[in-house]
């Protein structure tokens, strides 16, 4: 089922998430944002913003993001977990 692909490191994944948020919210400030804070609420992302975020994230990391994966892109922690493949059981 799972195809072999290069996963980003946790650090690279974190950087990509920040870059993808900044793609839609250029002045997003992550300094006071907890890893477990939902990004959509924190950065006021509507569904169109989220689409732009997911699109950028997929491009930056080369990790394919299916629509069914959207619920895993909620917080910094869940995004990094998804992108690095943590919890995939492979």
């Amino acid at each position, binding site marked *: 089922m799972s195809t072999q692909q290069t996963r980003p490191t946790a650090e690279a994944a974190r950087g990509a998430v920040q870059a993808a948020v900044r793609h839609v919210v250029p002045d997003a400030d992550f300094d006071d944002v907890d890893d477990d804070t939902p990004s959509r609420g924190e950065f006021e992302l509507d569904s169109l913003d989220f689409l732009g975020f997911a699109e950028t994230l*997929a491009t930056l990391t080369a990790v394919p993001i299916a629509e069914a994966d959207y619920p895993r892109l909620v917080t910094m922690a869940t995004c990094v977990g998804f992108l690095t493949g943590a919890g995939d059981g492979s």
Partner: protein
Amino acid sequence: MRETIARLMARSKREIPHYYLTTTVDLSAALAWMRERNADLPISARLVPAALLLRATAVATARHPALNGFWVDETFRPGGGVHLGLAISLRRGGLVAPAIHDADRLSVIETLAAMRDLVVRARAGRLRGSEMADPTLTVTNLGEQGVESVYGVIYPPQVALVGFGRVVERPWSVDGLLGVRPVTTLTLAADHRATDGFTGGRYLATIDDLLQHPEEL
């Protein structure tokens, strides 16, 4: 910007005798269709529910022209096309509602592209004068920010405003069987000088009906 909004909204509440209607719309058919369609597509080509809601509103508005236009000099003037105003909140505060021109002639895909383009340009301060000037009916999708329903204030001289609340899972009965379905609260604020509740009710029923047949949108 705050002053402009204050002036317009005060005028709206002072001059427009609003009436409000609301109905709950089952979105399971629309969302199932959307998910199936999105499954094989790259993110850039995927739809979001907001595009379906806006598309259904555009088609319904074309079918109910009494709600599409302006109240000027004590009379209703029909809009010269379905130019849907899209309420967009700006990150630094404030609100704009520029028009998607001839929205009833756009496919669902084109509707989404138009929404994305408008949101990006609205937030970058690059809207055209015509987009700001001529919406014939405004749509607000405040549900994206979490509220379950929105009873809007009409943007004068328009005569109607449509609101969509958050999509929530609710117990729902179909043919006597209870299930859990995604639903949204659809509301209409309309100018009673231009239309009566009967017209507004038929309009909301049309939007609901369209959303039950997403493949035809």
